[in-house]
């Protein structure tokens, strides 16, 4: 019985607190992405219209992010019935967007105008101690920051 109460508390915490934090994060992502729009990021190695690139430095941004208890249970349920797992989709996209933003912020703080050859890497972090649950995912975005002038 006490276990059931514990689980429902975790469930409610995940749903309300986690959901709220999720929406807050999405809002902050939208805002910061709009601010960083003027900084070009590309997976290629040249920027059309700018032949002279200079002052290259490696920049990277990373984040470790996890889903809440509610979404984890929903995700678990999905692994039984199959299909699209929306709760994890949003986790991955939030992680990637955050990592790219941090990389761009780091480029901007070094006075760069663009980031070329951007690569994105994702690693699953194990909880350790032998269990199969994830502690979250780590997303790393890196590229070469350059000046286009």
């Amino acid at each position, binding site marked *: 019985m006490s276990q059931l109460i514990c689980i429902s508390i975790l469930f409610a915490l995940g749903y309300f607190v986690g959901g709220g934090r*999720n929406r807050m994060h999405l809002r902050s992502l939208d805002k910061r992405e709009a601010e960083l729009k003027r900084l070009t990021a590309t997976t290629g190695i040249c920027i059309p219209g700018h032949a002279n*690139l200079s*002052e*290259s430095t490696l920049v990277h941004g990373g984040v470790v992010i996890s889903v809440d*208890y509610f979404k984890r249970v929903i995700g678990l349920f999905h692994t039984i019935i199959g299909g699209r797992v929306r709760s994890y989709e949003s986790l991955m996209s939030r992680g990637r967007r955050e990592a790219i933003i941090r990389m761009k912020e780091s480029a901007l703080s070094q006075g760069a105008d663009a980031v*070329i050859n951007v690569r994105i890497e994702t690693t699953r972090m194990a909880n350790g101690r032998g269990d199969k649950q994830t502690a979250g995912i780590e997303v790393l975005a890196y590229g*070469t920051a350059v000046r286009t002038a």
Partner: protein
Amino acid sequence: MLISNIETIPGRDVQEILGLVSGSTVRAKHIGRDIMAGLKNIVGGELQGYTELLQEARSEALARMETEARALNADAIVNVRFSTSSVAQGAAELFAYGTAVRLA
């Protein structure tokens, strides 16, 4: 030291390739951070303890790679790649590698 993850340094010419340089570090999370992350896992969101740990470790790996390149009298490191692998339970290796070059 100029570092880039493309084959050249934009605006400069590579004169000579000096060889492969790499830097790595193995880090483990300590139990306090583990417990905090476990609690954070309930509500989801960013696990700041881990983010910091990995960023710190990655900067360390980059710094070690730079030291190696400096020992070769290199001006720049091109084609840098990152890789992460877990070597043991609760420990991860962060690895950075690239090519040290002398610029014209």
